[in-house]
């Protein structure tokens, strides 16, 4: 049994325009110590996915269906009290903006000790010792003095290190990191990412990394999900997806990167933009932007416009695309006839 198992997760938002389905048919598993990346552009639903794992979606959002099971316990039906024992303790979160987690009027030490004491019955002295140890693990220089400092006295990179220290405080099984380095500079980002990776490997902690940066995902994670308009459209081992993306959107996303084009030449752009969740196109949500909607004979593939694609297995990956399904079918038929 996997450590974390998400099946048919369905999240909706009750807005005044009506109900919006922010997330549907999301399925994935996470083994102990595994690192999973969730990639997508803004509005794809990747943050909603992260928040729903711990049932942290704020009103008007709610989990309408599916299940999130952690060590065999279903999180989405658990009581608030039960959830509190999981949150921060067994599964912790790192947010994009460190100031979202850090209270500006409490010192770093106070916040860390408070967090520890909320979950464990230990003396302040023991708690401080653990805090110091964690700060050392995240390679903060002179950790003793940091305990008495306030968040605003630290630089952005230092704050994110403190956040990682807090996330590790209770030796969790899983860390969910929502765009942990987006607000940081390139050199700092590289260091924080390397640190996170190192710590996860050292302590055998699972990582769910939510990001829009394909480069970071390829460096840190073992498996990845690509999301588009509230759905997972491709999932599988990271290297395989990066090296040989199957879904036209994933292909477009990777090919649009400046490093994939000759300097000075046109970039391979995807036309149009992500549809809003309240106004999704029919069929495959990507079809208005897709270059492969036409068949070989130049006629559009009707299924793309009419039917939401289901998943097909392609090697180790799962892809939700009619074109890929058709290609696989053709290949299978050819193999059968030959």
């Amino acid at each position, binding site marked *: 049994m996997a450590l974390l198992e998400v099946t048919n997760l369905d999240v909706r938002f009750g*807005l005044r325009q009506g109900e919006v389905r922010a997330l549907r048919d999301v399925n994935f598993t996470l083994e102990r110590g595994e690192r999973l990346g969730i990639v997508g552009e803004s509005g794809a639903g990747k943050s909603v996915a992260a928040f729903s794992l711990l049932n942290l979606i704020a009103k008007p959002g709610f989990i309408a269906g599916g299940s999130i099971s952690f060590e065999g316990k279903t999180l989405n039906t658990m009581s608030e009290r039960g959830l509190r024992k999981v949150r921060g303790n067994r599964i912790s979160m790192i947010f994009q903006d460190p100031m979202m987690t850090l209270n500006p009027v409490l010192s770093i030490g106070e916040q860390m000790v408070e967090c520890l004491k909320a979950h464990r019955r230990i003396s302040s002295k023991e708690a401080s010792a653990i805090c110091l140890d964690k700060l050392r693990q995240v390679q903060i220089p002179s950790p003793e003095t940091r305990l008495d400092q306030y968040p605003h006295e630290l630089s952005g990179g230092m704050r994110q290190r403190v956040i990682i220290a807090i996330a590790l405080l209770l030796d969790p099984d899983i860390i969910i990191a929502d765009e942990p380095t987006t607000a940081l500079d390139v050199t700092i980002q590289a260091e924080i990412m390397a640190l996170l990776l190192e710590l996860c490997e050292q302590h055998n902690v699972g990582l769910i990394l939510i990001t829009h940066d394909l480069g970071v995902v390829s460096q840190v994670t073992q498996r990845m999900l690509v999301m588009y308009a509230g759905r997972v459209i491709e999932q599988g081992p990271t290297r395989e997806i990066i090296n040989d993306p199957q879904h036209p959107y994933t292909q477009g996303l990777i090919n649009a990167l400046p490093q994939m084009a000759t300097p000075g030449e046109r970039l391979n752009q995807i036309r149009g933009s992500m549809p809003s969740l309240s106004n999704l196109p029919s069929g495959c949500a990507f079809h208005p932007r897709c270059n492969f909607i036409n068949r070989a004979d130049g006629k559009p593939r009707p299924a793309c416009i009419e039917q939401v694609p289901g998943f097909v297995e392609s090697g180790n990956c799962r892809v939700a695309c009619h074109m890929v399904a058709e290609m696989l079918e053709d290949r299978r038929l050819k193999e059968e006839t030959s």
Partner: protein
Amino acid sequence: MTTTTPSVPGRWQRFRDSYLWYSFKRDYTAQLCFAIFVCLVFAAFSAPLLAPTNPYDLAQIDILASELPPFWIDGADANYTLGTDAQGRDLLSVILYGTRVSLLIGFGAVALQALLGVTFGLMAGYLGGRVDAFLMRLADIQLSFSTLMVAIVVGAVVKASFGSSFYSSYAVLMLVLIIGLAEWPQYARTVRASVLAEKNKEYVDAARVMGLRSKRIMFRHVLPNTLSPIFVISTVQIANAIISEAALSFLGLGMPETHPSLGSLIKSGFDYIQSGSWWITLIPGAVLVVLVLSINLLGDWLRDVMNPRLYKG
């Protein structure tokens, strides 16, 4: 991107789609307050048509019919629905006319406040530096004088130089001036704060890079984007101005009794409460409370709608 162009919605359609309209449709308090407010404003401004008598016309006043109670009390006269005051004026008519005066002063004073406050606030916020320091100190000084003190000083000066009959004949104008002058810093501060926030947005830089002059940037670009807080503060200020006017009139610094506002009506009836004619004070008092309360509740609703931090859906 050759998608078909959806039709551009008109102003009315935009309003129908707006969050303002959506939240108004769902907020019964706001609807009720809006209805009361519109009724009061309508009744007050069509007072010459609606009122049974003209209280300014001395010929229509019957001094013998003074202190008649409203219709639900024994001894009422069917001609005077809400009874009469000490001078024998029909109370309903005086209240309608009085509400008109109160509203006139309220709106007038707020218009003056807004004119001064928005101009000064915009200049202080956008130009900054010395202009800002000077205008804001001026606002501080103004705020340290209460409305009452301004009223006493202006009243004394005007009465001393032009005589009190001049003062009473221009009382509405005087009150607009006094309340307008006393309260403009509220506007100036609000506007300045939101200008400071808007000024750092990139569209202002874009306008500067375009080569537009400060005046045009201030009025064409920054001002329209500070309208939401101006709207919100206006509702509070109208209510405040009406209350200030009532307070001044109650103290005898406002409207004369021959030309009563709600405040001076309350004052004129106050002496008769002991003798049992409570309605002369309490009915105009109730109208004042309902008027101010409905404006304040509308203001509360407007603030909730226009403050994006409180967006709930």
